[in-house]
Each structure stands twice: as C-alpha cells, then as structure tokens.
C-alpha cells in the first residue's frame, strides 16, 4: 500500500515511453542502414532500460517483464557479446512494436500481455544466452530458524569515503534484534603514529552478535552496500543444521497468462479527451505579448468611451484599428498553439519503408524534407493514414524492382521523397518517387473493364491520372480502412477531402510520380459565403462553390418524383431548396427571385436555392453536436458579426442528398 498516489505520473510515463520507443526505432533503423555509432546502441539500451524501470515502478508488471528480456538482449549488444545483424534488428523492431502495443493497452487499462507478446517474449528469452528469469522470491522471505547471528565486520580503510558509516549499520542491526558488541578493535592498517591518522580513513573492526529470529536476508540487506568496503563473515549462532537447509528456489518462471486468445491489432484511439499538446515557450510568449497589447487597447478605448467628445473621433478610429490588429494577431497566435510539426507523422516512414523493402524485395532510399512544417493537430492526426497509403502505393506500384531499374538504366535503389511546405494559406505535402510513373495503358484498360470509361474514348494525361481516384477503380471491395492493403485511392481522396483538402497526381512515364496533397492550415476556421434563407443565415464554404446564378423559371425542369433540375455547363443539376430542406417558413420560394449557388463535392454538383447572398466571412466553426445534436446537411455553427448564429452547410451531405433525389 502506497501513501503516495503514483497514478499522477502514469501519463508522463506513457508519454516518455512512447518517445523512448520512437527513439529506439529510429536508432535501430539507423543501425540497419549501416551506421556503426556506439551511441546508437546506448540510446536503444537506455530507452528500454527506462521503460522497464518506469513500468516496474508504476505497476505495469507485464510491460516490465517483457522489457526486461529485451533489455537483457540489448545488454549483450552493448557489452559487445552479441553482434548486430539484420536478424537481431528485426526481432528488436518487433519488440518495439510489441512494447508500444502493450503500453497502449496499459494506458487504456486493458489486459496487457497477449498471445503475441508472450510468444515474442519467449523468443527473446531463447535468444538471450543463459538467461534465467529471476524467480520473484525475495531472499528476505526465507526466514531461517536461528536464534541469532555472529557477525565479524572489519572495515576497509576507504569505507568512510563511500559515504557509508559503521554507526548507521549498527543502528539498522539494532532494529532487527538485540545487538551485542562482543569486541571492537583497531585493524592492522592503522598507522603507528597518531599524527599520521587520516580522519577520512577507517581502521576499525567489530565482532557482533545479533540476537533474535532474524532472517539472513535482512542481515545481508544491512551490509549489501558494503561489498568491497569491508571484510564480513556472518554465521548462525545455533541451530546451524536447520539454517543450512534453506530451501532451494526451484520455481520455474511462469509466463504471464495469455489473457487474450487472439492477437489484437492496436489502433491508437485518438480520443481528444484528456489528450495534451506540447507548446513551445515562444508560442506562449507571443500569446502573452498579444494579450498585453489587447489590454492596452481596451483601456485606451474605455478611456475614450468614458468622456467621449466628437473631437476624439480620430483617436477612436485609431483605437479600433489597433483592436482589430491585436485581435487578428491574437487569433493567429492561438491557432499556432494547435500547430505541430509534421515530423511526428513523417517519423513513421523510415520503419514502414524498411518493412516494405523486405516484403516487396525492393530497394528504397527515403528522403524527408520539411519535417518542421506545422499543421493543425486535428489535421495531423488524420493525415497519417492517407500518407501511409500513398507511401505504400509508391513502393508497391511506383518503384520498380532493382532488376527492372537496372535494365532501365536507373540506379537499383529507388528514391522516395516526402516533402512538406507552406504555400499561401495551405500546407502542401508531396510524395514523389522516381519509379516507372503511371502506366496509362493499364489504367485505361482497367477503367474500361470496370465500366468507368467507354472503349475507344480518348483521354488526356490528366484525365487518366484522375481515373485512379475514381470510386470503383480499386480492385478492393468497398473498404474504408486505410491501414489495410489494396484500398483504393478514392478513399485517400475522401479522407483528404474530409480535412478540407485536395489530392492530385502528376506523373511522367519512366521518371516517376508525384502525389500532392493540399491541406488547409486549420479546420477551425473556414472562409464562407453568408446566404439568407428567410430569416435564417446559412454559410456555404467558399472552397466548394462553383458559381452563383439567377435562373429563369423556364430553365428549371420538373422531373419524376417532384425534383427540379436545371441545365448547367452540359449537365443537369438537381436543385436543392434550402428553405424546404431546413424548413424555413418565410423564405423566397419563387426561383426567379432567389439565387442558386452551385456547389461541388467529389466532382458531383448541386444547386442550392437561397434568398440572397449577404457576403463573405471567416467563420469559426463550432460543433453543433457538442451543443445540440447532429443535423443532416449541417456541419456546424458559427456566430456572425451581429451576434446571431448561422449554420454551416455540410456540402458533402447536401450533395449526396441532392444526388439521391435526382436518381430517385
């Protein structure tokens, strides 16, 4: 029972353990690519060591047990008793994965060891030469049936210099039983002349008797720090025969019960609840700085307000300009707090590439650029899977085998480049390879086979590239799990679109392909068009608007099922009357008097009928679910400059709804 609550340190422990595992993985990969730096080995060892120590301290026994074996193996590497080869690195990388999963389960309070971790632990035990898992029977628990101990204790001269003190030992012995000093003596090491006596040297010895049924282990524990600092013999006083018969510990280490019968794949649960964010001190300083300016501006404005005269109009205007600037800068500073470097996502790729090289028998050099480019935390959490998919695709389909590359006159090792940078108000992430490029003939053949294009249809390069993003192009059946293989590029595009971004590809035959993902800086603010529908205000995200137009009544056709369509750039688009969809009573119902806003999602378009366009505004997105409930066709709410609430149109949802009607 612990009087100190250690759970407060768990979160820190999990965080630093995750960082330790990342460092381990990076160092293992560096070793694998031929680095020979001893410091890498030390880094790996230290990480395992810290995790083991922390896990044991904070009560995660299964993690500690597993890490202990991994650490033993690493100790052999560190002391150069074991050579580093690719087999060893493989098993250690798997151990890193396993520890990561175990920690993840620990942090969720789930059973930690499973069949997979246990199998790997056994594998590690077998690797470690002569490893005997120490039986968890403390020596102290073996109570010897004795009536006391004879202790002959002679200090070596340097004993005091280690910070130890014979007096302390005696006090400790006294706590175990009655201590009797039989004899104290000066040792031969003492100088003959008193003047030569060095107070930092100890030249004393004692013969002691400790009375009582004291366990040998407890006596040993008193002297355990003095090994090498004294001469010590401890013998039982009586009942010697019985004391000798200390039971041998024959316990066979019992593997922790495999609590889960099937291996479970871990997916990090991205719960925003209680998740923390590390913020650089410079960002916090910037915030405080802005806050200071805001306070000054505020006091200046209230000063003007208290005794306002028309002559102060100029000052008032200046103050408002200042307020606007301070507010904008404060907003930017706050947004920046949520921004994290993309490195945390990029860092996954050395490992992924390493694994794929082996699996697909290819040779790949990975280049990472712009790791310090910062993204909104939410975007960062969701961009990982699409990127993994693109990287996997690039190695699987883009890069050729070493033999093919050689035949094509290229270096056998392919290059995969990941690059992130800012461009305007966006973040651009590029994945480029120097592989074969998109195979137009094969793509067109497959698209025809799947009925996406008609036979004999002429397609431009861009149109062919666009085909791979079409739903139904992928061989895989409807799948949304990006971590699995064989998932279509359409899922990648959908995931990127969900983040308000876009993805495209450029390719040159024989030279390689470049996939470009463009993402908004943040999901929290959108540029929107404010529209009026009756007395309500709806905001349409600017990025999804194609055009706004006024229709003549005769341009609208009724179709079966009561739907309306109109002709727009060679196609018929369904009209979605917002007043009907959201039940607004006093809205314009005559199409000629309203305005149709054409919006697009995934290449599909719908015309929204609204009363009027009121203007453009940046909208801070507030969750509707958090305050009310999910509403179909609405992605959130925002507060307008006049203080009223406007709903933000969920373009994807509305387009799907409109298309269904058209089809119906």
């Amino acid at each position, binding site marked *: 029972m612990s009087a100190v609550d250690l759970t407060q340190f768990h979160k820190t422990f999990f965080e*630093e353990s995750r960082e330790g595992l990342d460092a381990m993985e990076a160092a293992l990969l560096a070793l694998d690519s031929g680095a020979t730096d001893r410091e890498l080995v030390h880094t790996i060892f230290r990480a395992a*060591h810290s995790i083991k*120590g*922390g896990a*044991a301290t904070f009560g995660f026994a299964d993690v*500690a047990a597993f890490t202990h074996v991994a650490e033993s193996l690493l100790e052999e590497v560190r002391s150069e008793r074991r050579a580093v080869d690719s087999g060893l690195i493989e098993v250690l990388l798997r151990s890193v994965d396993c520890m990561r999963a175990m920690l993840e389960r620990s942090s969720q309070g789930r059973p930690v060891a499973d069949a997979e971790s246990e199998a790997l632990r056994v594998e590690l035990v077998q690797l470690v030469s002569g490893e005997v898992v120490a039986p968890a029977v403390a020596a102290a628990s073996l109570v010897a049936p004795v009536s006391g101990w004879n202790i002959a204790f002679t200090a070596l001269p340097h004993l005091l*210099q280690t*910070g130890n003190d014979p*007096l302390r030992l005696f006090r400790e012995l006294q706590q175990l039983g009655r201590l009797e000093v039989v004899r104290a003596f000066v040792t031969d090491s003492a100088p003959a002349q008193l003047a030569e006596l060095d107070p930092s040297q100890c030249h004393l010895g004692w013969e002691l008797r400790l009375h009582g049924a004291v366990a040998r282990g407890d006596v040993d524990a008193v002297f355990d720090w003095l090994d090498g600092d004294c001469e010590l013999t401890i013998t039982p006083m009586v009942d010697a025969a019985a004391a000798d018969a200390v039971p041998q510990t024959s316990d066979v280490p019992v593997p922790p019960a495999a609590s889960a019968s099937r291996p479970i794949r871990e997916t990090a649960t991205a719960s925003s609840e209680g998740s923390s964010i590390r913020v650089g001190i410079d960002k916090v300083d910037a915030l405080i700085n802005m806050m200071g300016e805001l306070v000054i501006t505020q006091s200046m404005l209230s000063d003007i307000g208290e005794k306002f005269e028309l002559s102060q109009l100029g000052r008032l205007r200046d103050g408002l300009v200042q307020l606007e600037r301070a507010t904008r800068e404060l907003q930017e500073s706050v947004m920046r707090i949520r921004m994290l470097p993309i490195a945390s996502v990029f860092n996954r790729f050395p490992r992924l590439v390493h694994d794929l090289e082996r699996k697909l028998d290819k040779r790949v050099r990975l280049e990472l650029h712009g790791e310090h480019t910062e993204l909104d935390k939410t975007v960062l959490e969701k961009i990982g899977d699409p990127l993994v998919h693109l990287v996997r695709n690039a190695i699987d389909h883009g890069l050729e085998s070493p033999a093919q590359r050689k035949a094509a006159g290229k270096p056998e090792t392919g290059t995969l480049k990941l690059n992130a940078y800012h461009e305007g108000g966006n973040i651009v992430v590029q994945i480029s390879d120097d592989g074969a490029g998109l195979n137009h003939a094969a793509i067109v053949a497959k698209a025809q086979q799947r009925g996406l294009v008609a036979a004999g249809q002429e397609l431009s390069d861009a149109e062919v590239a666009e085909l791979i993003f079409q739903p139904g192009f992928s061989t895989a059946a409807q799948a949304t799990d990006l971590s699995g293989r064989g998932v279509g590029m359409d899922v990648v595009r959908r995931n990127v679109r969900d983040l308000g971004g876009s993805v495209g590809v450029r390719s040159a035959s024989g030279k390689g392909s470049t996939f470009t993902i463009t993402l908004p800086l943040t999901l929290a603010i959108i540029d929107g068009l404010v529209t009026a529908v009756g007395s309500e205000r709806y905001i349409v995200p600017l990025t999804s608007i194609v055009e706004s137009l006024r229709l003549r009544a005769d341009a609208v056709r009724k179709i079966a099922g009561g739907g309306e369509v109109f002709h727009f750039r060679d196609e018929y688009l369904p009209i979605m009357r917002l007043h009907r969809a959201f039940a607004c009573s006093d809205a314009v119902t005559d199409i000629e008097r309203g305005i149709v806003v054409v919006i697009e999602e995934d290449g599909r378009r719908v015309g929204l009928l609204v009363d009027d366009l009121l203007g453009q505004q940046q909208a801070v997105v507030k969750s509707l679910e958090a305050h009310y409930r999910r509403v179909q066709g609405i992605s959130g709410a925002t507060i307008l400059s006049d203080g009223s609430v406007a709903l933000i149109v969920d373009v994807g949802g509305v387009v799907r709804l409109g298309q269904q009607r058209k089809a119906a």
Partner: protein
Amino acid sequence: MAKILAVDDSVSMRGMVAFTLRGAGHEVAEAENGQLALDVARGSSFDLVLADVNMPVMDGIAMVRELRAMDAYKGVPILMLTTESHTEKKMEGKAAGATGWLVKPFDPEQLLATVKRVLG
C-alpha cells in the same frame, strides 16, 4: 529535513522521487543528467544525492566519480537508482564511490525508508 539532489533522465521517475521526498518534508533539487547534476551540486550543497545510472550526456557512474573528486562531496551519501540487480553495475558504481543503491522498481515507502536509512 534534508537537502536532496535527484538525478534522472526520466521525467516520470524523477517526478515520482521528488514528489515523494518533498511530501516527506525534504528539500529537493532535480537534474536530468550527470552533467547538469554537477552544475547544480557545485552551486549548492546537499545531504544526499540520488542518481539514475543510465543517462545521456553523463551517466550516473561518471557523475559519482566527479562528485567524489570534489571536496564538498567526499563524504556525502550518494545512492544509485538502478534496475540493474546484477552485481557488475553495482560494483562499478561502488568503485566510482557510490554509497549504495536502491533497486528499481521501488515504491515511495521503500524510497523513504532507504533515505531514512542513509540519513539516520
């Protein structure tokens, strides 16, 4: 109550040690590796030093050696916090001049008992 220097690169371990010791009324200074600990030790005096063995920049054993070379720390108890229960590391620490060790894992009570044991 005593002035104690806690040295560990692990934030959670160092936090736990410092929290426990402060809870018992001790004054605790923290350092995250041996090098930084030496800087702290030079600028102040301590009744006890608790140090992890495996740390980046300067490990615990090198730190003990350096501390023992300083006049002010000749007789000050230094305990190594170590998971390495095998004799080799302990002996290395001893040879460098450590007073003793506390084997990880330890709970707050064990830590306090050991500190009490050294400080008397």
